[in-house]
């Protein structure tokens, strides 16, 4: 599903999700250990992934590259639970919700 240079991220392909809504839902439904494992695998490759992706036109990414982009969106999504909150949910957010209903497509 991913460009061959990024095969080591294949085990995390369930994080390839096309919308913020799906990524946010997966974050809330995931345990910290799972998100930590994904973060630990993906974060060190973020710069290399970005450099690789920048060799393609953003509005016409081949399928494996698009998947890599979406995977990196998920990395951004889990960065808050991992780097800041130590829990999936935003602390002090109670029952508040905020749905993303439109976002720039890749």
């Amino acid at each position, binding site marked *: 599903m991913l460009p061959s240079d990024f095969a080591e991220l294949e085990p995390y392909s369930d994080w390839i999700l096309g919308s*913020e809504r799906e990524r946010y839902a997966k974050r809330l439904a995931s345990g910290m250990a799972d998100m930590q494992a994904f973060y630990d695998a993906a*974060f060190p490759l*973020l*710069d290399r992934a*970005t450099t690789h*992706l*920048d060799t*393609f036109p*953003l509005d016409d*990414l081949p399928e494996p590259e698009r998947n890599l*982009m979406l995977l*990196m*969106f998920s*990395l*951004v*999504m889990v*960065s*808050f639970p991992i*780097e*800041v*909150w130590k829990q999936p949910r*935003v*602390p*002090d*957010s*109670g*029952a*508040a*919700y*905020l*749905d*993303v*209903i*439109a*976002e*720039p497509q*890749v």
Partner: protein
Amino acid sequence: MPHFSKPEAGSWTEQYPELGTSPVNYEDSIDPAYYEAEREAIFKRTWLNVGRVEQVPKPGHYFTKELAAAGTSLIIVRGRDQQVRAFHNVCRHRGNKLVWNDFPGEEVKGTCRQFTCKYHAWRYDLTGKLTFVQQEGEFFDLDKDDYGLKEVACDIWEGFVFVNLDPQQGLREYLGDMAKGLEGYPFHEMTDVFTYKAEVGSNWKLFIDAFAEFYHAPVLHQKQATKEEAEKLLGYGFEALHYELHSPHSMISSWGGMAPPKDPSMVKPIERELRSGLFGPWDRPDIAGLDPLPAGVNPARHRSWGTDSFVLFPNFMLLLWAPGWYLTYHYWPTAVDKHLFEANLYFVPAKTARERLAQELTAVTFKEYALQDGNTLEATQTMLKGRYVTDFPLNDQEILLRHLHKVVRDYVKEHADAAE
């Protein structure tokens, strides 16, 4: 110890003596009768921003806007003559809601050549003119010219589409000098949009209150920063660079040296890696119009400027950020203790994956903050409703809240007086 200077009057608030400095009564946020008065005095008579011109780029493009507070739904559509018009979303035959898809209460958008009623197929062109009546001969002296869609005043400022059900003045006059100072900002270049919506169980003004002061920021959001940084911020507290009131509108100008930070260790690893954060991507987009900025942006011309928040009365906020993007908030009341909240983040379209990822981080970060901002509201509403405490001391950094509640009070009173 103050870090930024205050006006000669000694405080921002006292610069505007009409505001007073006494505690503010919040009955205006819990009384159902007061809400009804607001609907009449404010939402049916002021210019309301319902969107951007980019939502109707070509003739036939339209969207609907539910305005519960004004008791209507509108169709906004661009005509073949390029003019953007607004109409009450109601069929002139027997009142069927004209444009909707699966659920009548849900906003929709699309393109069409004309509007056709689902009920008996009356048709209206893009200027609202009734063009076709099914079995026209069955009607009695029906002149189609008398049954066009009911039009609503609609005007555009800097690409923002405004409507007004009963204009007391023109849009530019209403928006006044504060908005004039923003003219020329490259809003039209920032067309990649993240849209957020939520139904919030509080009065609409309470959420504006939450976003119109940053006194809360070092406290409520302290866990967002690294520990060391959070302690420092808490010690400083919050002081704005500048406030301005142009009644009924107002603005706060705030510092924000985080884009990029002086010391990268102040920020999280993902921010360092993607060069982005709450204040936006650190690398400015390469477009004209950001340097110099229009005079109304960063009005104090402060070097540490980070963001300006403009409260455009009644329910529209516009935030411009130093790194070259903007966001909007809208608060659409549906009851005294309920409103629909909408936020839109606008960026110059990313040309590279790196730029797009930087925007993604800003968008994700925005939501983390907004969830904390939104969480306090429903509990506040419940406690206010008990009326055990009715008056609240607002400090100098809460001047925009004091101003908002006063303006609402003035509009309601003026409308009631006029009706007598």
